[in-house]
């Protein structure tokens, strides 16, 4: 005789430890799952005829961008607006920053003006960490130098999770300029936290620093596999992420030529066949079609590039919700 089975209790409330979102190297699996759950609810809001909820009414969010960005800034701006926050965009190149104001002074000004959350993109790795020390506002890192892009990694993880609910044990391949990629770094952290096996594939000159011998734990990045051959790297992969090859790398001496890179590392249909059937193709954008990815793959059935953009808004709404309000440390 068995009594009625009781389903495990879903938590009704949670302690959100993060006062800022600087990277996801300090996120636990449970916290990432909470972001997934909250994102699902936000997607429901986005599916309504009137996609606006009053959650952040009266809160001021500043987008402080020291680097050009279209999709990330737009995505944060829409996320904030759908939650009824007031949004101000500050483009550093045309503001008093161009007149020589320091980061710390700018933050002081924004705080005095009543910013509750500052979404910040900066060309220098670590800048958001300094910002977090000098302001009462909450800082969301929207990309800092080569270091981290946590919201992009979370939206990538969420997009994968929508297709493959349990990520544990799956195999991901990241192809491209990993050394200069904050997206890759944050994804390496996020994917390994979720139990995904990560393989990096790139010319040896574009491997990031801080990678230890395979299988050894080191402080800078979690253990990953390195496979310079794209054909071998793609073998039985569940998901493939290609990164943009920035044109300036071509002149940096790290690559012999773009044409060689295309020949050796472009994700093509012929190569994608080596991955598992239905393997997902991701790209953080903007895409250089015909360089790191062939147009046929970028627009193919396996590509989830447009879903990534759409999910970006919902993930950022979830993060703004989770950041708002809770007690200061």
């Amino acid at each position: 005789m068995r009594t009625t089975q009781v389903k495990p209790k879903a938590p009704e409330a949670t302690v959100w430890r993060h006062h800022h979102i600087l990277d996801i190297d300090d996120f636990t699996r449970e916290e990432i799952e909470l972001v997934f759950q909250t994102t699902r609810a936000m997607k429901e809001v986005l599916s309504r005829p009137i996609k606006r909820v009053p959650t952040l009414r009266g809160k001021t969010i500043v987008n402080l961008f020291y680097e050009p960005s279209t999709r990330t800034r737009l995505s944060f701006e829409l996320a904030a607006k759908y939650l009824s926050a007031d949004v101000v965009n500050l483009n550093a190149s045309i503001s008093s920053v161009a007149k020589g104001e320091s980061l710390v002074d700018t933050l002081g000004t924004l705080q005095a003006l009543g910013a509750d959350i500052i979404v910040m993109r900066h060309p220098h790795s670590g800048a958001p960490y300094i910002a977090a020390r000098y302001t009462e506002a909450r800082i969301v890192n929207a990309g800092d130098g080569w270091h981290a892009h946590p919201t992009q990694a979370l939206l990538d993880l969420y997009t994968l999770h929508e297709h493959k609910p349990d990520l544990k044990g799956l195999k991901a391949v990241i192809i491209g300029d990993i050394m200069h990629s904050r997206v890759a770094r944050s994804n390496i952290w996020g994917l390994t936290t979720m139990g995904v096996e990560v393989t990096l594939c790139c010319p040896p000159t574009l491997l990031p620093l801080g990678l230890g011998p395979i299988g050894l734990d080191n402080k800078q990045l979690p253990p990953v596999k390195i496979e310079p051959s794209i054909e071998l790297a793609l073998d039985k992969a569940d998901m493939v992420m290609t990164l943009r090859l920035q044109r300036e790398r071509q002149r940096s001496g790290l690559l012999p030529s773009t044409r060689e890179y295309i020949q050796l590392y472009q994700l093509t249909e012929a190569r994608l066949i080596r991955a598992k059937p239905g393997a997902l193709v991701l790209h953080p954008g903007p895409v250089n079609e015909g360089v790191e990815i062939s147009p046929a793959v970028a627009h193919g059935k396996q590509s989830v590039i447009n879903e990534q953009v759409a999910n970006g808004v919902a993930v950022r709404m979830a993060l703004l919700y989770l950041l708002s309000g809770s007690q200061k440390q």
Partner: protein
Amino acid sequence: MSKKVIMTEEDIKRTLARIAHEIIEHNELLKELILVGVHTRGVPLARRLAADIEGFAGVKIAVDTLDISLYRDDLSSLELKPVVKLTDISATIDGKSIVLVDDVLYTGRSIRAAMDALIDLGRPKSIQLAVLVDRGHRELPIRADYVGKNIPSSRHEEIKVNLKETDGVDEVAIIPMPVAKEGR
């Protein structure tokens, strides 16, 4: 902790059956009715009421779910952030009669939030409210159309509704609240 049980499994079952009869009595067009359960415990209560109504009147009633976290007026002051659950309103609510279902009616603020959330989703013909327990202490001009049990309580007590679907047991209890911590 001295817990006092005020409704047993049998009490809850009888009470819901009575509310189901009252809902049938007050709504001639049962087909136009939607039960909307407020997360968390309003959802299983709404499902049970729908099953009762189907049993008594032979009409299948739609059950939708509503999460009010994004509409709360106290988010900034909450130490524990509510986990946002899925709002699932399947069809249009325009012109429909809605019965909101929740476990405990207290200050009325949750119901205010629930009504705001519903009105953002459409223009229902009417909104009624069914609760298992009304414990008083209203802070807004809100009352329930269907009340399972009135439990006059002190603000220093907690009314805990446990349901099989969420807590493994059917029971309503009064629990004296722990002494408030200092510095809040």
